[in-house]
């Protein structure tokens, strides 16, 4: 019985945290912080317990009938635990960071409430056991992130919020159409859309294949808005007006990852990789993802603001996941799935750093970073590690992803993907190395733009610094200990073997 309720508990930790935080008055910040952090720690523990259970082949499933013939399913499988682990660990990191970042800012109850709600939605997305449940949490995510994007309440952030909504609600509507058609035309019994039931789509009659082809892309367009596939990525750079912890969360776990995770789910658990391959949907998606990878990198080159450059970098990096999911063969799959996590920890590090520069020294533009390495060494080291990771320099996490993606592409007979990977790495180098150059090799030019936090024992306040350092350490460790049995890579391999050898 506890098995059935575990997914509920995991979901409830952040959902209840959200509700409690909403009701707490603004001034109760100690209570709020304690509650928030203990919920986050509890969640990590629960996810850990569940992950051990999954590794030992336990089933965690909660289901009940929501509408006639449609079940609401929360189920933990290996893939969902990867995403759940990412979001629970980063929830703790970003919450700590946000506490430091928003010290003495107004509306903190609202902020942390929606922050927790946003994590609850990603939790739901990861644990969703069928397409319908996925859709529920996918939309909930849109709604819970809007208040975070517009949190500052300035004209600029409100405009950004409007753009964000246009894209995400539009994408949500398309996804709804896709899901509704999937249930209405293909899957009245709800078996195909159940992520745990495999192999049933291949048995459909051949005359439905055209429909399935079209539906695949309807679903992908719906998901692609969040996953920022070009040209559906327009909201992402604009949403950068949000506070740094929000950007970190949006880029690392919440929104873009939800889209990418959905793409993985659609390919592996609804269409089945083999059937998708036969249907011929993988190649177009792979090309689309590749275009996004290159386009995102090219656009990143043109940006002059730190966060904007990082945003376009996300556009590019997230498509690696989609690309990996399209590579027919276990190795490519491992690459795509493990990048889900690797990109998360690397990008969250980079955004934390950007936030640290902005909060501590008032730096927003890349040209203002000259010599910041000496003033903020730990932050700058973290940034360097994140940037090298993104480029794919070993032994960092990004290298592991690229390595598996490359070999997977060759195994799948899509050698041209290597070209995309290399081109993207070159472009990554082209937009990250100048930043590193400025950080470490350029002399400081005059006073900092707006230095609010003076260097004390450390370069900035601890709550900003230590989460940054922690995620940087994670991204080194994920690469350095990749072959270890508790690494993300090993977990991704476990997922993949379970997908390929059911």
């Amino acid at each position, binding site marked *: 019985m506890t098995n059935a309720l575990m997914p509920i508990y995991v979901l409830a930790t952040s959902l209840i945290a959200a509700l409690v935080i909403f009701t707490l008055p603004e001034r109760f910040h100690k209570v709020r912080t304690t509650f928030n952090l203990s919920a986050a720690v509890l969640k990590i523990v629960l996810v850990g317990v569940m992950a051990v259970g999954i590794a030992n082949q336990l089933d965690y499933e909660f289901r009940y009938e929501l509408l006639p013939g449609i079940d609401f399913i929360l189920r933990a499988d290996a893939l969902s635990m990867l995403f759940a682990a990412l979001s629970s660990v980063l929830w703790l990191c970003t919450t700590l960071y946000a506490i430091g970042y928003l010290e003495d800012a107004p509306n903190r109850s609202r902020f942390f409430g929606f922050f927790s709600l946003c994590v609850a939605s990603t939790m739901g997305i990861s644990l969703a056991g069928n397409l319908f449940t996925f859709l529920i949490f996918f939309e909930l995510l849109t709604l819970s992130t809007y208040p975070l994007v517009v949190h500052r309440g300035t004209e600029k952030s409100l405009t950004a919020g409007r753009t964000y909504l246009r894209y995400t609600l539009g994408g949500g509507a398309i996804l709804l159409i896709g899901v509704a058609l999937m249930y209405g035309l293909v899957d009245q019994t709800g078996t195909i859309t159940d992520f745990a039931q495999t192999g049933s789509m291949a048995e459909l009659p051949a005359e439905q294949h055209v429909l399935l082809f079209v539906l695949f892309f309807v679903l992908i367009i719906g998901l692609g808005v969040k996953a920022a596939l070009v040209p559906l990525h327009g909201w992402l750079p604009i949403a950068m007006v949000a506070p740094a912890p929000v950007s970190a969360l949006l880029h690392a776990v919440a929104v873009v990852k939800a889209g990418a995770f959905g793409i993985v789910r659609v390919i592996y658990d609804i269409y089945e990789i083999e059937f998708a391959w036969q249907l011929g949907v993988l190649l177009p998606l792979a090309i689309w993802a590749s275009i996004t990878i290159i386009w995102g990198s090219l656009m990143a080159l043109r940006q002059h603001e730190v966060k904007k450059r990082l945003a376009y970098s996300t556009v590019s990096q997230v498509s690696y996941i989609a690309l990996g999911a399209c590579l027919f*063969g*276990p*190795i490519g799959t491992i690459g795509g799935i493990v990048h889900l996590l690797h990109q998360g920890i690397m990008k969250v590090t980079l955004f934390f750093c950007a936030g640290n520069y902005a909060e501590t020294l008032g730096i927003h533009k890349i040209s203002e970073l000259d010599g910041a390495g*000496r003033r903020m060494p730990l932050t700058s080291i973290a940034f360097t590690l994140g940037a*090298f990771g993104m480029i*794919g*320099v*070993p*032994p960092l996490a990004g*290298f*592991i992803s*690229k*390595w*598996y993606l*490359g*070999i997977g592409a*060759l*195994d799948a007979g899509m*050698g041209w993907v*290597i*070209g995309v*990977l*290399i081109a993207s*790495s*070159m472009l990554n*180098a*082209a937009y990250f*190395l100048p930043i590193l150059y400025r950080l*470490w*090799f350029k002399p400081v030019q005059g006073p900092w733009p707006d230095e609010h936090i003076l260097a004390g024992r450390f370069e900035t306040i601890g709550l900003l610094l230590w989460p940054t350092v922690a995620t940087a350490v994670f991204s080194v460790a994920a*690469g*350095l*200990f*990749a*072959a*270890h*049995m508790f*690494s993300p890579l090993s977990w991704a*391999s476990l997922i993949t*073997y379970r997908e390929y050898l059911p």
Partner: protein
Amino acid sequence: MSLLMYLVHTTPIPLLVLFPLLLALCVRADTARRRGWMLIIAPLPMLLGVLFWYCYGQPETFTEVPWLMLGLHWRFDTVLTPILLMSTVLWFAAGLYVWYSLRSGTGADEPHIGRYLRCWLLTLTGNLGLLVAADIASFYTLFALMTFAAYGLVIHDQTKRALFAGKIYIIMAVLGEGLLFSGLIWGAAQAAGGALTPVAPLIHELPLAIANSDYGMYIALLLFLGFGVKAGLAGLHWWLPLAHPVAPTPASAVLSGAMIKAGLVGWLLTLPLGGDLESAANMELVPTIAVLLGLIGAYGAAVLGVFSKKAKTVLAYSSVSQMGMITMMVGTGWLYPHAWPAILAAVIAFAVHHGLNKGLLFFGVGWLKALHGRARWVVLVLLLIPALNLIGVPFTSGEYAKDLFKDVISGLPVGLFYALFTYGALATTALMIRYFYLQRRP
């Protein structure tokens, strides 16, 4: 008990490699000026380790840590240890040079000493490490570490020229890393052969996999060019004459003497060289290109070099020229697989000889700058020894190395090529004359 055994069995090589890295973490900006000794002791453990290894009769020594990266495997390779030893010695000597100049205060007014030391130690880690790395991931890691950390050495002076050279250096390096990554990954995929594991084969499995692959020629070409950037291959050498003159003297010495050999080591480790690789013949195009590029490098660099205005530029071109000769040797060995074992010995000998002598000549530039009067003349004359060595006049290491090669190819149907290789000495001579001409007065 078994844990102890395990530790004894596994620790040595990683400790030797990571020692400089640990030192790098200890460098602090404010006290860096007094930490020059770190550069001296940094390569010592490795030096002692290799010497011990030699003393104990070169046993099979390796360290395996399966859970690190994609499965870490480091070893002392019988073929590469001469290069390892040479590099260690050179780094040690260059470290002495830095320590002395910091102590004597000649470099006292320089800023960024902390950064310089850190970059130095990181580059050192990478350079020595890649010579013992036997798995692809860690080899590539250390290669990248060396490449990126050396940027800090190149631009240390922060002059406009240094920054420009740094830019070209980093662009070429990134390009090289890209070529390398594609070559390595492609080769690794062939070696893995679609199996689920291992995804990262050991580096010595690459040559066979490449030889047996349908795309072997392309993979080999990618790897050849990728490492070629580091090895100063003609056409990819542009960063060398820019970077060596602007870098601080000891840094140029290790760049030209030791790091440039990393490219060669890459070739030796990954390319399908050798007799037992039957299908090597189907990729004749690549070795032919290698020989041609080697020739162009050997002579072209000499032409460019004799018109340069700085001694260090001359030496840089000389390095390109010498590496051109090595490229020719590698290309020839590639074309004639049965002759490879003999040629390999010549290549190693040549590489060691070049590394040490080129290092000395670079140090010479620094010494001559600092000295006056008679002492200067003494040094100038002493510098004739490495110069003559490089030219390969009789009874020198240069002659020994070149003869090893000539003996092999005299038995091969290479025609004019024998003469072309031999007259390479002329190119070297011209460069050496130019070097001494430029150094004739302070």
